């Protein structure tokens, strides 16, 4: 385990913690971006260059911005200076999250002896990725295209102001 792994993991985890714990929602969104970036760098470290750069393009470039827009659009006056940002039942949620981590960790550690040893980095070129997309994974590609179209239309419809007469 190289040192970069630890640094990047720490960055990412810090960003994640910030995203869920900060009081100001915009700060959370920005912290989220930091988490996304850390993750993208981890992808790069794992020789998944395309995935890492796609992560930056999509997540940091679109999703985080979108989140910020949404936060700004749904602000109410009492949100600033709010007493409590955590819900009434925060403890149960925390316990559950801890339980989930415990279970996952236990699963990992149990099967750890069976993990294979690191091998050489695979040669991944964009050309190969392109052929794979158009060849083996053409069906998921088309479906995702359809999905994106539907999501686009749906988001627009959902978020549009309703006409005055149809109320």
């Amino acid at each position: 385990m190289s040192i970069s792994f630890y640094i990047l993991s720490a960055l990412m985890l810090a960003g994640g913690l910030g995203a869920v714990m900060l009081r100001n929602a915009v700060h959370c969104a920005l912290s989220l971006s930091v988490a996304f970036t850390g993750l993208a760098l981890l992808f790069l470290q794992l020789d998944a260059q395309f995935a890492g750069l796609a992560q930056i393009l999509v997540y940091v470039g679109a999703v985080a911005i979108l989140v910020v827009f949404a936060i700004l659009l749904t602000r109410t006056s009492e949100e600033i200076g709010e007493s409590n940002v955590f819900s009434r039942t925060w403890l149960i949620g925390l316990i559950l999250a801890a339980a989930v981590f415990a279970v996952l960790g236990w699963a990992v550690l149990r099967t750890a002896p069976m993990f294979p040893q690191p091998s050489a980095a695979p040669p991944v070129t964009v050309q190969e990725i392109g052929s794979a997309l158009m060849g083996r994974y053409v069906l998921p590609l088309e479906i995702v295209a359809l999905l994106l179209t539907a999501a686009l239309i749906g988001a627009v419809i959902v978020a549009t102001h309703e006409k005055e007469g149809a109320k």
Partner: protein
Amino acid sequence: MSPLAGYLLVAALLFAIGLAGALTRRNAILVLIGIELMLNAANLNLIAFWRFGPHPEALTGMMFAVFSIAVAAAEAAVGLGLVISIHRHLKTVDLDEINRMKG
């Protein structure tokens, strides 16, 4: 400990953090943020397994992760649109107060 275990543990931790955020924050958008974190944790799992698993040249893991990113983007768009719409109707995004589906 093999590198794969390390990555998996980190992913698990990120997942738990995201889950904690989704369960404990009042703001609906922050719940969505938590969900994004969970998705990202899953993506990390996928890439890790691709890198350290058999047949990385098949690109299965990477493709999976790329598609996951695409879907997550779509889902974030629609979800945030919904939150905006809820805010328009109920004038709030505080989840403790939204129980219109109570049954």
